[in-house]
């Protein structure tokens, strides 16, 4: 009987392969998390004693400790660090790992806050915009189409400058973070609307006819029949938009939002360790984006296999 066949489908090889992928995904995430923690923790020695910095101008930091540090500091850090911590201690103006963790953590919290706000606003705007894009005719369509194309066809960096420096011209004095959220929301909206449109397009028009034939209102047909199907199809590409936008958030440091890149920049200007700090920042982003990418891939696979994702 059909139901049994269906449950067999669920349990066969694809499922065990899926489990393998899931395990790999989690392992990689955990590994990235551990690496991040380790990177933050090993920060102290370098910071505390003013470090070895490759790029540091001579005499820029405490000369006394410079002698004890290897030129290729980062690799030999732990051992060095232990020594340094004992011999130098803190209190000479160095940056302790706790401080680094707090600063970067705070910066990243801002990053995530901006990303989350922009994604939420952008997503809710993208649904009606996607609906209009899917109509393919009419004045509302052409206006929306042009706007979305313009946003997608211009650099986010330029848009950020435009909003931040342009808003006062029309009497709006937007704070950097407000400008950032506004710009990124519009961006998320544009990309997600495109995804929503293609999701809607993939739903057979007959689904709408059938719903209407059953006497359902246009709204109920959209809400109960068309949207759930379009959304399931759109989930993987939407996740990719989420990942892209989270990465774009790094750009907002240029309009002086004190997020994680900005924080890292100031840490680097004290410690002269760009590799270390930017690597830590990269890992922080990766820890967030990696599970999303994996999840997107898995859902995509699942939709392809089943033709439809039931659970």
């Amino acid at each position, binding site marked *: 009987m059909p139901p049994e066949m269906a449950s067999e489908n669920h349990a066969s090889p694809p499922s065990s392969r899926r489990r393998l992928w899931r395990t790999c995904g989690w392992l990689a995430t955990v590994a990235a998390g551990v690496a991040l923690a380790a990177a933050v923790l090993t920060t102290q020695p370098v910071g505390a004693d003013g470090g070895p910095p490759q790029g540091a101008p001579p005499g820029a930091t405490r000369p006394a400790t410079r002698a004890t540090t290897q030129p290729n500091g980062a690799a030999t850090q732990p051992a060095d660090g232990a020594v340094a911590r004992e011999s130098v201690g803190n209190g000479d103006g160095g940056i302790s790992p706790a401080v680094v963790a707090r600063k970067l953590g705070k910066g990243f919290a801002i990053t995530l806050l901006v990303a989350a706000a922009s994604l939420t606003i952008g997503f809710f705007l993208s649904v009606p915009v996607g609906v209009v894009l899917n109509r393919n005719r009419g004045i509302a369509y052409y206006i929306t189409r042009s706007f979305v194309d313009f946003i997608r066809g211009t650099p986010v960096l330029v848009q950020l400058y435009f909003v931040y420096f342009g808003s006062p011209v029309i009497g709006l004095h937007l704070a950097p973070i407000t400008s950032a959220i506004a710009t990124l929301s519009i961006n998320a909206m544009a990309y997600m609307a495109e995804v929503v449109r293609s999701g809607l397009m993939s739903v057979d028009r007959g689904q709408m006819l*059938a719903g209407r034939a059953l*006497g359902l209102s246009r709204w109920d047909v959209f809400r109960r029949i068309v949207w759930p199907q379009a959304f399931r199809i759109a989930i993987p590409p939407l996740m990719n938009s989420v990942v892209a936008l989270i990465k774009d958030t790094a750009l907002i440091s240029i309009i002086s939002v004190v997020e994680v890149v900005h924080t890292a920049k100031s840490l680097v200007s004290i410690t002269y360790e760009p590799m270390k700090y930017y690597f830590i920042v990269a890992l922080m982003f990766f820890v967030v984006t990696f599970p999303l990418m994996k999840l997107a891939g898995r859902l995509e696979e699942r939709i392809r296999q089943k033709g439809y994702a039931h659970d």
Partner: protein
Amino acid sequence: MIKVENVQYAYHTGTEALRDVSVAFPRGTISAVLGESGSGKTTLLMLLGQFLRPDAGRITLDNRDIYEIPEPEYRRALGIVFQNLYLFPHMTVLENMTLAPVKVLGADKVGTEDDARAMLDRLGIGEIADSYPSQISGGQGQRAAIARGLMLQPEYMLLDEPTSALDANTTDEFAAWLRELSDQTNFIIVTHDVLFADKAAHQGVYLSDGQVLDTGTIDTIIQHVRSGRLVEVDG
């Protein structure tokens, strides 16, 4: 009674799909709309379902122009099962059936679910209630789609090519099944399958190239087809 009077319809491409079509679908009968491929059968169904509007002529339900009947009322009077069924793939068969009664009629959800299960049992497909459309056979899907339409208890029900997913044996069974249901619902069956029409319907209309070639009892139409007066369709 549904009456189609002198209806014209041309698609924007210029195809004159229906030319001066007049036909009546009285209560208490199963009607067949016959005709070869491209003769305008589906177009007629789309007009009856208010998805297309006639360029000329009119369609009435009990002498009222269907465009003067409030849409909710008309939708409840006439159900449609499309050729491709269009079961909602993200819902179980049961959910497919309860959506409209709950949303449109404001029926109580639990009571409607009981009704739906009873309906499926009566139609002999009780076991698929909790399956998704992708998990059932073509014939089961056909019945499920009809069951979904019957939940609103329409007086008329249009079926477009209902036998396309069925083999010969199942088609006979299906015809008998429709006959059984026909005491409560007036079926209008769009089909190019003359044998099926013979088994299921009482009366019919034969379309060719957008025009009515023949109307009357199904027996006379089939006689005309057999005698070569109407083009026999391969099916």
